[in-house]
């Protein structure tokens, strides 16, 4: 039988023999001998912490005579032996404004409490962060930056278990990816829902792409279920997965490896509340992928964010080609004609990376390279209409060919951002389109340099 001194505690603490620390229900520092009593007893000293975490705590059901089955006198005694938080000195002995509040009990050395964590829920597997369902301006600004390609590959949150609302042992478990935009989209749709969110380590990649890369996989689910000790948190054995994860997840393997059943949820997080209300049944519309105007529009900035590097090389080449002529090389011509060529390139970029994605269903053709070539020809024609007076007759078709070729190539590359192009189709299209695009580029170079000699 041992009694030890604990800094900050009055008196000595009883440590039972042979019981390893760690088998406690809660990390109480004034207890070494957890007897796994009911939560009522734990709440005697822990209720303060619970209230601070923003969650009401049931302090025992009222008994018939109106009294509660908790001895309040003992609550006071237990609290008295807890160390008190030192108060800031109130007298005006120092300069500056009053100090900010004391640090929260949820802070840990070396970790930062993220802004979307609104509190913690205590579970048999330890405290689980409860996340807010409302997005902050910082979340939105971050999302806008990522949509423009800034910090897009460093946009992951820590994998593990999170909670929404007042999640309990019977609440559903939703599985998702650890791409911050994916996580934000899901929690935004969970206002008013009590649920657990199991976030997998998909290396900051969204659900569908991660499933395609085998990052959102049954093995990862089994690992995460085990690491979070999910079976101690919930009484049921059911995981709700986004439908698009089916590309990487075999439901049978999840059951075999983790003991949890898979329920295939809707494609979009926006349908999750209807899905839960309908007894986990998804209507057909919830099971289909869409590619609406808005969904295409948000992809445009990322398409453009890939371009600065190749554009620098291409512009240098265009200005160089433009200077070649009868007098071997002319800097005046390089600048004047180079600007026209750069304008045709810009027209191609606009047609291929902006107009084609946005107007996709209305541009004729199935192959993206064809759609891009048509869009590039149209935008290029508009450009040379405005440039026509300052240019030689042979230069106009050359610029048109350049705009069409650039647009065709960029539109072809947009296939990777769409939710309906098959790899077999893309490969077939590329085998036809790339030789034509290369030939068009050659035609442009010959016509452009040739017209300088002709002029």
């Amino acid at each position, binding site marked *: 039988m041992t009694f030890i001194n604990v800094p900050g505690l009055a008196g000595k603490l009883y440590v039972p023999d042979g019981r390893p620390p760690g088998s406690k229900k809660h990390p109480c520092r004034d207890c070494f001998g957890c007897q796994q009593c009911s939560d009522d007893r734990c709440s005697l000293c822990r209720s303060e912490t619970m209230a601070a975490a923003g969650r009401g705590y049931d302090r025992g059901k009222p008994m018939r005579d109106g009294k509660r089955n908790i001895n309040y006198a003992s609550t006071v005694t237990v609290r008295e032996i807890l160390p008190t938080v030192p108060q800031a000195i109130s007298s005006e002995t120092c300069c500056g404004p009053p100090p900010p509040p004391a640090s929260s009990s949820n802070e840990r050395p070396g970790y930062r409490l993220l802004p979307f964590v609104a509190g913690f829920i205590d579970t048999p597997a330890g405290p689980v962060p409860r996340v807010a369902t409302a997005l902050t301006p910082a979340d939105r600004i971050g999302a806008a930056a990522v949509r423009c390609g800034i910090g897009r590959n460093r946009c992951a949150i820590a994998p593990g278990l999170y909670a929404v609302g007042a999640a309990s042992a019977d609440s559903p478990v939703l599985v998702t990816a650890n791409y911050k935009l994916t996580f934000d989209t899901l929690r935004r749709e969970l206002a008013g829902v009590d649920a657990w969110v199991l976030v997998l380590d998909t290396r900051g990649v969204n659900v569908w792409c991660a499933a395609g890369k085998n990052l959102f996989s049954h093995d990862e689910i089994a690992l995460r279920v085990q690491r979070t000790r999910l079976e101690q948190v919930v009484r049921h054995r059911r995981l709700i997965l986004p439908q698009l994860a089916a590309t990487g997840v075999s*439901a049978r393997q999840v059951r075999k490896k983790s003991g949890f059943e898979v329920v295939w949820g809707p*494609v979009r997080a926006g349908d999750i509340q209807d899905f839960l209300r309908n007894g986990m049944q998804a209507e057909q519309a919830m099971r289909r992928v869409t590619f609406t105007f808005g969904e295409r529009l948000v992809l445009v900035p990322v398409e453009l964010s890939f371009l600065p590097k190749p554009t620098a090389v291409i512009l240098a080449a265009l200005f160089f080609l433009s200077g070649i002529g009868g007098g071997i090389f002319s800097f005046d011509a390089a600048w004047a004609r180079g600007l026209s060529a750069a304008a045709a390139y810009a027209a191609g970029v606009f047609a291929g990376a902006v107009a084609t994605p946005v107007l996709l269903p209305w541009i004729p053709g*199935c192959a993206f390279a064809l759609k891009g070539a048509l869009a590039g020809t149209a935008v290029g024609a508009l450009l040379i209409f405005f440039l026509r007076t300052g240019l030689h007759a042979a230069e106009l078709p050359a610029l048109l060919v350049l705009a069409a070729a650039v647009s065709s190539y960029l539109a072809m590359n947009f296939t*990777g951002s769409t939710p309906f192009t098959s790899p077999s189709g*893309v490969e077939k299209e590329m085998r036809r389109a790339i030789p034509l695009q290369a030939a068009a580029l050659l035609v442009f170079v010959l016509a452009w340099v040739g017209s300088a000699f002709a002029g």
Partner: protein
Amino acid sequence: MRYLPGVTTLALDADACVGCGVCALVCPHGSVRMQDGKAEIADRDGCMECGACARNCATGAIRVTPGVGCAAYIIKKWIKGKNAAACGDVNCC
């Protein structure tokens, strides 16, 4: 929205199908449907070869060569070879 017709590698062996219906459930384009307790290819050209159906078919009745319909990835595959071409590195989806 439609893509090139007649290219998909989607194939169904009706005899091996046990009619569990998972393929029809997970297909994001409605390319597979259930008919008289068996899976049936309803819209072959709508298939984008994502592989969800084949991944979840218990008997291997439905098969597809899954992959990413992405030109940038295919170009990398042609240049660097299949293993070196990483889908999803910097400047990709």
